[in-house]
């Protein structure tokens, strides 16, 4: 009984891992006009028994805010965890699940938007012509931006 419980609780003993710097894109691939571009964050990951050298662990939107300044917005909706889509014709982010909407900079642009907080930003560094970021996931559904441990 106890041995079963201990093994069942195993996930609690494991951290989320990650948090290291990952190269996600070349600077020129991020449009200079500030239009967000969707890129996959590809890195090594271990899923239980499978070790994969390069696998997408998440998706971010990169947006140019200056000649060599880039902002990264997490694609997971802070409301309930769906995939937020960028809609070019509306120049806004839109979540297909519960209709959360966000401005192009990730802020909430409609008071009726059910999301409790703006889209989550990630730490970005531009090193030469390469865009690097620290990838994390955050808890949806609450106002505070708390990284998943």
């Amino acid at each position, binding site marked *: 009984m106890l041995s079963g419980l201990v093994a*069942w*609780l195993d*996930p*609690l003993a*494991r*951290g*989320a*891992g990650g948090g290291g710097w990952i190269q996600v894109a*070349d600077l*020129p*691939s991020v*449009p200079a006009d500030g*239009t967000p*571009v*969707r890129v*996959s964050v590809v890195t090594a*990951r271990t*899923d*239980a*028994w*499978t070790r994969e050298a390069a696998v*997408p*662990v*998440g*998706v971010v939107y990169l947006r140019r805010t200056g000649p060599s300044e880039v902002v990264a917005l997490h*694609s997971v909706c802070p*409301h*309930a*965890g*769906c*995939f*937020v*889509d960028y809609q*070019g*014709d509306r120049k806004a982010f839109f979540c*297909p*699940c*519960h*209709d959360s909407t966000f401005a192009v900079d990730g802020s909430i642009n409609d*008071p*009726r*938007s*059910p999301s*409790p*907080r703006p889209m989550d930003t990630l730490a970005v560094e531009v090193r030469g012509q390469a865009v690097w970021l620290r990838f994390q*996931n955050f*808890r*949806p*559904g*609450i*106002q505070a931006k708390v990284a*998943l*441990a």
Partner: protein
Amino acid sequence: MKKLIDWIDQRTGLQGLLHEVLFERIPGGARWRYVWGSTLSFCFFVQIVTGVVLWMAYSPSAHSAWESVYYIQHEMTGGWFLRGLHHFVAQAMHVLLVLHLLQVIIDGAYKAPREVNYWFGIVLLMLTLGLGLTGYLLPWDQKGFGATKVATSLMGIVPVIGPSLQKLVVGGSDYGHHTLTRFFALHAGVLPGLMIAAIAAHVALFRRHGITAKQPYRKPEARFWPDQVLMDGVACLAVLATVVYLTVRHHGAELHAPADPTQPFNAARPEWYFLFLFEFLKLDFLTQWFGHHGELVGAIIIPGLVMGVLAAMPILGNWRLGHRFNLGFLGAILVGAVLLTVQSLRSDAGNPGFQAAVAQAHAEADRMVTLIRAAGGIPRDGAASLLKQDPATVGPRLFAQHCASCHRYGGHDGLGVVSAEAPSAPDLRGFGSAGWLRGLLQADTITNSAYYGGTKFRTGKMVRYVREKLPKLQASEPGALESMIAAVVAEADLPADRAGAGDRAGTVEAGRRHVATTFGCTDCHAFRKPDEEATAPTLTGWASRDWMVRLVGDPTHADFYGARNDRMPSYLKEGRLSERDIGLIVDWIRGDTDPARWLQAPVATKPSSSGVAGARP
């Protein structure tokens, strides 16, 4: 025979048990309103049988779950029917549970001394919902994956224990093998086990207290056998007939494309019996009244309170107006749930973006089957690896992301989404075909938004030529224009045009002369020989794969627009897209999507003669 029955009876008491079951007293006689419990038991039995057989073919891991369900659905003899039954019986159970609950509340069958029995019923309701929720993920397709992400995220907002609970259910911080193994253990082991125990208790207590007969009695007291047994049997058959009808009509349960967390899935919706909850979370009052706690209130607290009231009904029912309150409360919840479900369905039906996403999801699911058949099976890297190499799948996605802010494809963005904004570059559907070129060479269409309308070329030389010179040239030599078009289109060599290419050789030959002489195209364009003085894009290899890949890579190259390029980025030169990605877009636009071209595995012979393969609609 008699001897055998006696032998068994002496050792098991079977006859006594059977007697007790069949000769249960029913005051007021058999009635249709008593059938719901039996139909539910029947459904559960069907689920166990179909579930165990599905289990024999299912493989719970992130690398094999979708693939094994694909095999059940598309290859295994009768697999689609088995899976369809399991899927639709699950849905029937939710409907029957509501009817059963309604009957119990209306008839007051939850009152003393039947409280405990009623609570077992509530437990069974929750177990059924849990089975629906866990079963939805197991195919590991886009739809189940998306819905489970939301469901587990909602679990995570429970105060204090939420995050740990979510981690335990998901089997880690991220979705993967252990999400499936845990969900499968719940779905096929823990929940059905609890369900069997709860059903046993529920039925035993029902036998102990007897049926709550509906007053006034219409007929004299009867026994369970034969009239009620007949009614229950007819009801079970009606349920089975409905389920079989739905299964055949929909060709079993849908299987979407494999889960791909890197692609937005805008067709994400929960199963229909959770739609009311989904729609409830969209209601404005949650954010207006509770601010950023809206979700906690909407997804956890209010449903928790409703469940609490439901469980407390036997106690509430003791008050003078308690029974009426219970009736009113349940009625209000059901009407509310129906209204929310209708609202959700209606708002989706009136949302072209959602409809386009659903159509796209269906197309991707069908494409997946085509690719697997063409490859002769699923490669070791999984089914998703086939989709990632497929121009018909990846091409439109890349087009929507990188091209559709200026171009269109048949009026939409490649994925079916129609923008309100006018396009600022040509529509590329059919680019390279005679039809497309004819439209470009017509005075009244060349400045349409589908051609040069949104570009700076609308006032350029080509438009002036088409409007002023071309009609005269065309009139002087009838038929020349068509053969000139045939000659230019022959450069594109679109797969769709290859069939009759031999028959057109003569026309093309004549057309090539017209390009240079009759129409004077070569005054500006190069055609089939180098031309240093050309000022417009080369027509040599026009719209061929190589021509298009080079143009997208760098439209400012002298072979194309040079310095006259109008806003088109140099995708390869500027590092915006790789050559491979450009090739995928180009192959898709050119309709060059036959998987045999890029599949390394030998093209498969036709799928086995199981009959299932050919029966797909």
